[in-house]
C-alpha cells in the first residue's frame, strides 16, 4: 500500500520563477493538505483540498495556489518566487472526518525547494 508520494524531491529555482509541486495521497484518502516547513521551524499550514476545492487556507499570499484532480492527487503552485520561499513543502492526506476526529495526517517526505 503506497503512502503519500511527492515529486520532485529536490529542486532549485531563481527568484521570480514559478514552481509546481505534486502529491499523490495515500490509497483511499481524498483530502490533501499542504504545509511549508522552513529550516528550523515546524510545518505551517498552507491550504487543504477536498472534492477538488480549497476548503481551508492558512496565512499565505495568493502567490500560493493549488489544485486537486478527480483522482485526489494535488498540485501546489508558487508564483513569483522569493528567497523566503525556500523550504521543505510537505503534503499530507487524510479522510475528511479524520482531520477533526483523530488529527492523523499521513505525510509524504516532502519536496525541498531552494530559491536562489
Amino acid at each position, binding site marked *: 500500500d503506497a503512502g503519500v508520494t511527492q515529486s520532485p524531491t529536490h529542486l532549485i529555482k531563481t527568484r521570480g520563477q514559478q514552481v509546481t509541486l505534486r502529491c499523490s495521497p495515500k490509497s483511499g484518502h481524498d483530502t490533501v493538505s499542504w504545509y511549508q516547513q522552513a529550516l528550523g521551524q515546524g510545518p505551517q499550514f498552507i491550504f487543504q483540498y477536498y472534492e477538488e476545492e480549497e476548503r481551508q487556507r492558512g496565512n499565505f499570499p495568493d502567490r500560493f495556489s493549488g489544485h486537486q484532480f478527480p483522482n485526489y492527487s494535488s498540485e501546489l503552485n508558487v508564483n513569483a518566487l522569493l528567497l523566503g520561499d525556500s523550504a521543505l513543502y510537505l503534503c*499530507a492526506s487524510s479522510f475528511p472526518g479524520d482531520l477533526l476526529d483523530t*488529527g492523523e495526517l499521513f505525510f509524504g517526505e516532502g519536496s525541498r525547494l531552494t530559491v536562489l
Partner: protein
Amino acid sequence: AQSVTQLDSHVSVSEGTPVLLRCNYSSSYSPSLFWYVQHPNKGLQLLLKYTSAATLVKGINGFEAEFKKSETSFHLTKPSAHMSDAAEYFCVVSLEEYGNKLVFGAGTILRVKS
C-alpha cells in the same frame, strides 16, 4: 499569538534514560493535542493524540503524554530512550478558534547518546 510552545529546541539523553519533551499550549477552549515525530529524510508520523478522553495518552514506541489543563501542558515522556528515538518531535494543537487546523510547534530535536 503563539498557540503552542515547545520549551526546548534540543534535548540530549543517554540510551536507557528517561525522555521528557515539554510542550505548552494557549487556548481559551479545550484543544485537541498531538505529538508527531520526524525522522531524517522520512515523513512526519503521528505518535499519539489527546481528544478530551483520558488525560494520560499512550502512543507508539513506548511514548506517552499527559494533558494537564491547569498547567496548559502536554509533555511527552518515555521511560527508557532507545537509539532509534533520535528524531525531531513536534507538539501540535488543533484549535477551534483556528478552524481546527493543525498548528505545529517549532520542534524539539532529540539526541540519544550511546
